[in-house]
């Protein structure tokens, strides 16, 4: 394993992220903050939502932000680089095995997703307070969940980015991302689906469900949530599955 080349590729991605910091900031944080403001402040403040909705909402918003950031950070550059700019060639010719080039992309995406989560948390809290009851009871478990969520989003980005053509980006959002978010127990807990028993079972194939429920379990355990051991197991399963699929798709794209 060539750690120097691996480190240099991470440094390259960090450099590019720094250069695009402002754009990345708005892309990552504007939507969740508006969401938190409208649903947490306006709807709760006007009495359409109960006050405790504030605490229920924020973990789901963190999960969406992380998932979206990780997928975007990995998939978008890969789609463009494989398809028309071929920019990635330079890294494919670096003296490092191909799997590690893909893993570097995953690590870079994971780090961005974790940063997104760790920034949306206090920003959301600032927008929603007072009356929001959120605390990190078990920092270690929170760290595990946040890493696994970042991992699944980045691995998902790898798998999607290496399976999609540029002309299908719009389709990716309407067919994959949007249903994932709405059936991801992001704006409501999984237990809220109990009146829709079939749907409640079906949504369990959506990894975002475990991300949202994991955030709830570690940040707002006062609400009902899936058992944390199940959440960790499911997230680990999706991390590994999407990584394997992503690496395979990456190789298909990289070598003709």
């Amino acid at each position: 394993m060539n750690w120097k080349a691996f480190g240099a590729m991470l440094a390259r991605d960090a450099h590019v992220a720094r250069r695009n910091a402002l754009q990345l900031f708005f892309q990552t944080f504007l939507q969740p903050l508006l969401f938190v403001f409208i649903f947490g402040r306006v709807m709760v403040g006007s009495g359409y939502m109960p006050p405790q909705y504030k605490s229920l909402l924020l973990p789901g918003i963190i999960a969406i932000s992380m998932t979206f950031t990780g997928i975007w950070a990995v998939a978008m550059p890969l789609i463009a680089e494989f398809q028309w700019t071929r920019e990635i060639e330079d890294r494919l010719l670096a003296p490092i095995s191909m799997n590690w080039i893909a893993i570097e992309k995953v690590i870079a995406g994971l780090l961005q997703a974790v940063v997104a989560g760790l920034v949306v948390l206090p920003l959301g809290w600032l927008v929603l307070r007072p009356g929001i009851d959120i605390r990190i009871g078990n920092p270690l478990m929170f760290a595990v969940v946040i890493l696994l969520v970042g991992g699944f989003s980045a691995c998902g980005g790898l798998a999607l980015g290496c399976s999609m053509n540029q002309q299908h980006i719009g389709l990716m959002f309407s067919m994959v991302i949007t249903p994932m978010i709405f059936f991801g127990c992001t704006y409501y807990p999984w237990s809220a689906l109990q009146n829709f028993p079939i749907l409640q079972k079906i949504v369990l194939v959506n990894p975002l469900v475990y991300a949202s429920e994991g955030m709830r379990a570690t940040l707002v355990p006062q609400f009902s949530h899936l058992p944390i051991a199940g959440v960790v197991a499911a997230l680990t399963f999706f991390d590994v599955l999407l990584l394997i699929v992503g690496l395979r798709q990456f190789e298909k794209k990289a070598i003709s």
Partner: protein
Amino acid sequence: MGVGIRTQDLRKVFNSPPPTAATGIVMRGDAKGSKAAKTQILAIDGISLEIYAGEIFGLLGPNGAGKSTTIGVLTTRVRPTSGQAWIGEHDVWQQQAEVKRLIGVVPQRPNLDFSLTAREILLFHGAYFGLGAKARSERADALLEKFKLTERAHQMTRGFSGGMMQRLSIARAMMHDPQVLFLDEPSAGLDPQTRILLWEIIREYHQLGKTLLLTTHNMEEADALCQRLAIVDHGHVIALGTPNELKASIPGGFLLRLRFGKQTSDLMDRLKVLAGVREVKASDGIGADVYADRGGSLIPEIASLAASSGAELSDVHISEPSLENLFLHHTGRSLRD
């Protein structure tokens, strides 16, 4: 100690259109089950080459001959369907990281990192290859200077002209001082001035004992730069040798392309017996390609012979020994077709 390149029976069949320029022979596979017949493209078909350490070797051929695919296989980017390739002692497919350390690649189409400035492209490339901060900074500045890009060093490359992108691609490929440099159509789209700069740089790099493999469909370039050449067509090597050897292998050396108002049956036979004529090939029904030891001095004889056969000579083109003629002799087609 230089590093050579070897291939043995390389074969590549693409099951879907390849991303590069390869447009080899299209074959229709047998339909299996309910699936529709798959289009298969035979890009290279049994290429065996030995390129010596420290030589400039050229692959010459028309578009779609299999040149880029051969380079793709040698640079770990294309998986061969069968056959083997080595860079130095390293099997290209089995020891990819070692091979990648030895080679530098200039692609046919620039693939610069658009998120970085020109200088950063060189610096990060150096870092991928483990160069220390000071070494890569010095080398990047030296290469920018050499390729006349110093003024643009801190600009993003998106707005660069084709020639500038090509120069930067070559500088990038040289950044880690590779033992073997691959250049895929290096002078395509370059203005004459930049082409001369490029040729100088290629020769200079060769002086350092490096091995260079370049592809081209420009005979002038192949003739001027390469010590040895392989002429490639439809995925096969059809001739191999030094430019002079190859040119000497054309019968007679001179090629006279003739066109007649009409063709008569005995004309071909009568052309063959003219003094100095080595070979006559009919072309397009009303023409003939005559390979001969002499050029212009044959014309009066041919003209009177044509007149006496009732086939009026309508057009003559004489060319001296060249790689173009060689390609034509082997394939019956012009390189430019």
